[in-house]
């Protein structure tokens, strides 16, 4: 590859906010005072926070320049494994800005908020249909909070059975949020090793599942991009011993309209609307993590819940067995709205095609790289493929260094060093919205990086060389933390 995607650009420097400005400036249009001044007792008031005073143009230039140092899905391919960085439709952003929704107060009486309640009610039904489960809460703010909500439901279920349990099974390929969420509910995570093919074996689960174990948390497809083929058998074992099966829906993008988790033994499942349902990641959030459950677990869902009566919708709190509230109001409504718009844009056939093309794209990348990168598990994948840096050990080049070099070629690197079970993992999830040409470009770039690892390792160790900054010293940042200026 003679030319990289990137070319020289104009990267402007920009100081910190408080290194700009001048006392007395203001970038805000202050409303006129139409009432008399009324002073608070001076013992209650302070001098105001030490903010810089900036004019409007200074604020605009500051953030415009900052934005040019960022890389988003709109900039280019963003193949982060397990993150599903698909295209975020512009129409969804526009609709979220409609004044009727953007300016709506969460505590409006039901009669004055029928639009939002109807949207939530319908979205719950759609998500129930997609997951094959019966009832949904939209309240959790993110995937991890969905997991926490799910674990609270597991906890409430066992409490209602009259005997609490102490442990939970979590495969060694799981996201870190799984054990952390379970631990918040007092469950000790018991790691379940995956089998030689990268998937769970029923006999291993059977050996660990006992009457002290509350259930299992399964990500399917798992973080190796493999479908857990034994899911039904595993669910049967867990159910027979009184446990519940929690599904981590982070990877649902692989199986929309192809597998309904509720039909293959999953009792509770969270979805990441910011992954599967196209809502933007926003540089780390906000996302949304709705939770779907089987009918008999619906009584534990968080309050308030949206109910319909004779075509009118209302929020109700009279569910005595509910785990309670997990957020101050009704969830990240602005995100829910975007996901709702996405579902209506795709339709039933569109969803099935999403998963087919997501899996096609992942296998295409896998095929294009498997002769130069070591494959952790040599078998077709679902929506993401996992490699490692094993072939580059001899040249002394690591996953991190290859990732940094990909930046110079104009691509966001894949997820690295996860899942933990693969040493030096490189986890690639292209998603369905990428064109064949862009995938070809990415494959060619990665192959070029691999060539450089053998021929010119210095250029890799120096990478990235075309960003705003060169490689940053994370050790110094952690040794002497400087968190505020």
């Amino acid at each position, binding site marked *: 590859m003679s030319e990289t995607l990137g070319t020289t650009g104009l990267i402007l420097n920009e100081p910190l906010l408080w290194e700009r400005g001048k006392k007395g400036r203001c970038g805000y249009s202050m409303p006129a005072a139409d009432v008399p001044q009324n002073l608070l007792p001076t013992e209650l008031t302070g001098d105001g926070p030490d903010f810089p005073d900036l004019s409007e143009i200074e604020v605009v230039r500051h953030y415009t320049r900052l934005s040019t140092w960022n890389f988003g899905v709109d900039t280019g391919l963003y193949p982060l494994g397990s993150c599903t960085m698909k295209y975020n439709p512009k129409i969804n952003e526009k609709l979220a800005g409609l004044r009727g929704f953007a300016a709506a107060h969460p505590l409006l009486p039901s009669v004055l908020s029928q639009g939002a309640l109807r949207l939530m009610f319908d979205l719950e039904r759609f998500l129930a249909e997609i997951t094959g489960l019966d009832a949904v809460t939209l309240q959790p703010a993110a995937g991890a909070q969905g997991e926490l909500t799910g674990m609270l439901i597991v906890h409430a279920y066992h409490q209602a059975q009259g005997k609490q349990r102490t442990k939970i099974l979590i495969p060694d390929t799981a996201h870190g949020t799984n054990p952390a969420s379970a631990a918040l509910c007092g469950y000790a995570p018991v790691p379940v090793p995956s089998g030689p093919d990268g998937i769970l074996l029923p006999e291993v689960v059977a050996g660990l599942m006992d009457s002290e174990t509350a259930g299992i948390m399964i990500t399917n497809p798992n973080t190796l991009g493999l479908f857990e083929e034994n899911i039904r058998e595993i669910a049967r074992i867990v159910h027979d011993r009184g446990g519940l099966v929690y599904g981590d829906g982070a990877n649902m993008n692989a199986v929309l309209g192809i597998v309904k988790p509720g039909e293959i033994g999953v009792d509770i499942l969270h979805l990441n609307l910011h992954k599967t349902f196209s809502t933007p990641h926003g540089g780390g959030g906000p996302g949304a993590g709705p939770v779907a459950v089987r009918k008999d677990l619906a009584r534990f869902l968080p309050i308030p819940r949206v109910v319909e009566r004779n075509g009118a919708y209302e929020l109700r709190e009279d569910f005595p067995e509910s785990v309670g509230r997990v957020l101050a109001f009704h969830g990240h409504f602005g995100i829910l709205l975007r996901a709702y718009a996405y579902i209506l844009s795709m339709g039933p056939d569109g969803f099935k095609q999403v998963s087919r093309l997501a899996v096609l794209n992942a296998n295409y990348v896998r095929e294009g790289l498997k002769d130069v990168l070591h494959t952790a598990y040599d078998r077709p994948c679902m929506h993401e493929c996992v490699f490692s840096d094993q072939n580059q050990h001899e040249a002394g080049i690591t996953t991190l260094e290859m990732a940094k070099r990909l930046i110079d070629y104009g691509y966001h690197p894949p997820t690295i*060093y996860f899942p933990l079970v693969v040493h030096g993992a490189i986890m690639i999830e292209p998603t369905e919205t990428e064109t064949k040409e862009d995938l070809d470009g990415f494959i060619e770039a990665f192959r070029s990086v691999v060539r450089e690892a053998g021929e010119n390792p210095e250029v890799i160790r120096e990478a990235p060389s075309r960003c705003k900054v060169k490689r940053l010293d*994370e*050790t110094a940042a*952690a*040794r002497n933390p400087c968190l505020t200026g």
Partner: protein
Amino acid sequence: MKKIEEIVLPEELRYSADHEWVGQEGDRARVGITDYAQDQLGDIVYVELPTVGKHIAQGAVFATVESVKSVSECFMPLSGEITAVNGPLSDDPVLLNQSPYGEGWMVLVKPDDPAAVSKLLTAEAYRARLKGDA
């Protein structure tokens, strides 16, 4: 990373399979992590040490050592009461990388069993184990 042959293991110290070293000092034992352990961990950014006076059993966690993206627990090589900790490590964790057997020591212990130190691995036996590990 260092080859096993390059790992420094002072002969006068004893070692545990969990990569701690112990040095006998009268009725006390000084404890730290080995050159191998610091090399594996990479740049250490933070060390959490126990409180003085605490009794910790052999095999229990007595400290945690953090690099940028990992947390490792350190296991007591012998049972005893913590009589001193290396305070400067908290502000200057780099000492663990630079001088694991000197300024990077971690705790001073009063062992329950005065003969416990001699029951640990010799430098030779520990290096043999490392080769098995590697």
